[in-house]
């Protein structure tokens, strides 16, 4: 009775704290911005047309009213919390009057899809290879693949992505290098659409996988090489349990638990890699939206995306925290 409720309470507290600090932090950081949204959109609007200076003045007043920038910082902060709770980040300044939230919502499935796929592949493959390499320490093939993934691990996502783009988009143009799906293909569960999604997702996902797999490999290998000397594994070996079973049920399974916690902790940095990759491959996700927001000086968008990514990462971490007890009976049953 003691363990699980306490665990849950702690996780819940952490969850709210992450959101509270993250959201407050980003709000106040953004408010220090030298970017004036009204001037920004004004310069967008007047950039290419002959505009009477007097007319610009009128437009400026109208926009300031429309963008809802009145009130003291504190009032804006309170209002902002109200908005976050309602999931309303106000209208995008560079895409006025489309709500920031609807921009995020239309980009989010792409990012979630790409990240989930890449994370599952990365985590599974990295842990599998790492566990095998930790368990069968002398296998040459495993050593070799270990060397490759470990060498790739510290290289920034941008560079890996750039190299892949050049190789598969330019030198051997076999894969699309831009966008999320083929043009003029209606989204749906058709075979063509899914294949197109896979084609467009391959290079971005591969980038994330290649960059991410190394750290899982390294940590899993070291976890496994520790666990194989644990009593219960040695005992199972003495008990004549088959080595396949020992590997899967006695070694890998136990090593996966800390890796699951690691998965939760890594989500924040994985999202960072996705931002760069999406930008590079022009993938229509939240990361590209964020960088566009920065290039366009759209601070409500930047604020919205940052806040949403903090919330999304916190939620994902929380979900993993909730799943964890299901897998680890020590936490579930106290």
């Amino acid at each position, binding site marked *: 009775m003691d363990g699980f409720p306490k665990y849950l309470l702690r996780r819940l507290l952490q969850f709210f704290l992450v959101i509270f600090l993250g959201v407050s932090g980003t709000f106040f950081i953004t408010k220090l911005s030298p*970017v*004036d949204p009204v001037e*920004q*959109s004004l*310069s*967008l*609007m007047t*950039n*290419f*047309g*002959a*505009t*009477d*200076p*007097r*007319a*610009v*003045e*009128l*437009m400026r*007043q*109208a*926009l300031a009213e*429309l963008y809802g920038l009145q009130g003291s910082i504190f009032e804006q902060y309170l209002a902002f919390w109200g908005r976050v709770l309602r999931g309303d980040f106000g209208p*995008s300044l*560079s*895409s*006025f*009057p*489309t709500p920031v939230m*609807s921009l995020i919502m*239309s980009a989010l499935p*792409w990012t979630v899809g790409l990240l989930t796929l890449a994370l599952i592949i990365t985590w599974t493959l990295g842990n599998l290879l790492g566990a*095998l390499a930790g368990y069968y320490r002398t296998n040459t*093939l495993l050593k070799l693949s270990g060397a490759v993934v470990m060498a790739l691990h510290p290289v920034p996502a941008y560079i890996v992505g750039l190299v892949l783009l050049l190789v598969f*988009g330019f030198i051997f143009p*076999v*894969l*699309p*290098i*831009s*966008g*999320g*799906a*083929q*043009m*003029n*293909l209606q*989204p749906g569960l058709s075979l063509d659409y899914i*294949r197109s999604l896979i*084609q467009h997702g*391959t290079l971005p996902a591969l980038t994330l996988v290649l960059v991410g797999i190394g750290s899982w490999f390294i940590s899993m290998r070291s976890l496994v090489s520790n666990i194989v000397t644990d009593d219960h594994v040695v005992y199972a070996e003495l008990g004549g349990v088959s080595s396949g079973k020992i590997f899967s049920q006695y070694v890998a399974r136990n090593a996966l638990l800390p890796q699951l916690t690691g998965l939760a902790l890594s989500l924040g940095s994985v999202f960072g890699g996705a931002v760069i990759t999406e930008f*590079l*491959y*022009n993938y*229509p996700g939240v990361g590209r939206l964020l960088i*566009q927001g920065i*290039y*366009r*000086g759209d601070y409500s968008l930047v604020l919205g995306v940052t806040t949403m990514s903090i919330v999304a990462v916190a939620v994902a971490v929380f979900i993993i925290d909730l799943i964890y007890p299901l897998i680890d009976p020590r936490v579930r049953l106290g």
Partner: protein
Amino acid sequence: MLIKKLAAAALAIAASVMPAAAQDFIAGIPRNEALIIQGPAAQNAEWFNLWAPGGGASNNGLQQLTADTFWFVNPEGTGDAAWTNALAADRPQYNDDFTEMTVPLKQGIYWSDGVEFTAEDVVYTVETQIANPGMNWSAPFTINVDSVEATDPYTVVFNLKEPNSRFHTLFTVRWNAAWIMPKHVFETVDDPLTYANNPPVSLSAYEMHSYDSAGNWVIWKLREDWERTSIGMDLESEPDVKYVVYRNAGNPDARVIEQMNHNLDVINDIAPEGMFTIARDAGENSAYWFPGYPFAHPDPTLPSVLFNHQNSKFQDKDVRWALALMIDIRAVAMGSYRGAANLAALSVPPTGTAVVDYYEPMQEWLTSFEIDTGARTIAPYDPTVAQQIAALVKPQWGDDIPDDPAQLAAMFGHGWWKQDIEAANELLEKAGLTKNGNQWLLPDGTPFTIRLMVEGDAIPTLARAGTILAQQWSMQGIQTTVDVAGPTNGQRLGAGDFEAAVYWTVETWGGHPDLSFFLESYHSDFIVEPGAVQPPRNLQRWQDERLDAIIEENRTVSFDSPEVVQLGMDYLKLAVEEMPFIPLMAYNKFAPFDTTYWTGYPSAENPYSASGPFWSNTRYMVVNLEANPNAPGAQAAQ
């Protein structure tokens, strides 16, 4: 075992993904009926309301292919040919004191949903925008229009609040202009500011076919009743281009790759090196503004070194002139554009009609122009700069570079100021500066340093120019650092939050000598205090009584009056004398075309349309292109 299985699975996935190249590039649309154009990345892809501020993605084909208004000016054109009556049946007709403008409309023009376009649409457009502050043309209409009426279904009369000889320019498209709204659509809408207008009803030859909700592409298709539009009724035959695809093709490298893969017919802008690559590797399948080097198409904008006149460092014209004379323009041209720059000594872009109206007539005046350095008098103009740059690039481009000075002038500009360090030093001394070692000191004894602001990523050639200018000034004892302002560039320019910047404050019609397009805003009435936001154009906050006099006089003469050119020359001479900013060159854009599927693109030889596909004038290019009979699949289709 497990490892083998994994490898097999990976191979299977790879195999299912590989046939990418074999598929149609666009699902369900024949490639040889589609023109693929580089488009913007739209954030709010569902937004098609051109009249409310909606995200700046209206150049995804919306303004080019579905919108229409009274008149178009071809920014590359000269003389009468540059002017097109679109919805209007004739040129603007003013009364004597410019308080009333009458516009006769063409008949037989229909919206794409079958409703006829009439004067009521125009009246609705003006009145709705006046009633809704925040709409894109609300402010200028509110200031100018007292009333607007449809005297009959094909005639509109504007009654102005005060005389304005340039009121018609609100409806004259260069990049865009006040587009006409579909009254029958918007009058059913509660709030025209938040109405997405999706799908948009078209007043031009194309209508929306489909779009990507992720904002990466929009496909437009030729209207079946394309003849019932202002652009269609002038055509001799049905346009070959049945579909226009505006797609966001990624970064400049991706654009080049995609064009070489024949997946992108029209590029808006890439770096010069990308252009050279296309010319080198895909020369037989591509076309450019110039058939060879320098390839680029000059926009009617004038990148310059802007000085903040409210900063005490730059208030002395001798200092500004000294900085100009320290510049080796050849290095700037080489560094920013690899020599492919169209240099400008005058404060007007050397494009379109400005060449014949201003540059050619004023060569003599420029050559004889003299300045007093305090120690002596020099004639700084060097008319041979084009030949010098030609000599620099000849080793690389060989036969692309002609010998004829007139042709060279068209490619590289007419001339610029000769680098003259000695004269520059004399000017600085004249202005009270002193040199201490290799460091110039201001009259108050502090070091003369400059922070030079550039935009950066979006306008890379000017960032490149900025770094060279900074190096040249630094070498002469004026420490210059480059600030990359990014998206705050516009705002900082507006607020006067800069010392010097590489940007443009001069834009012209291109196809018309009238300079009011930018000059109107240069009047000292609009100059604000330091820190306050300066309305667009006169970002350097240059103030001069002689300038005000020119502007005031220009207001009283009609748009097409010959006096316009005379006043323009007065302004240009004043700008040379004062050097309020240092004009560098036209804003050259490298916009290569793929000729695999389409031919007949505009060029310097046949400048029937702007070549930048974001400009609304592009619509004339789209309807004039011809299908390449040798295109893959062309025979099969016939």
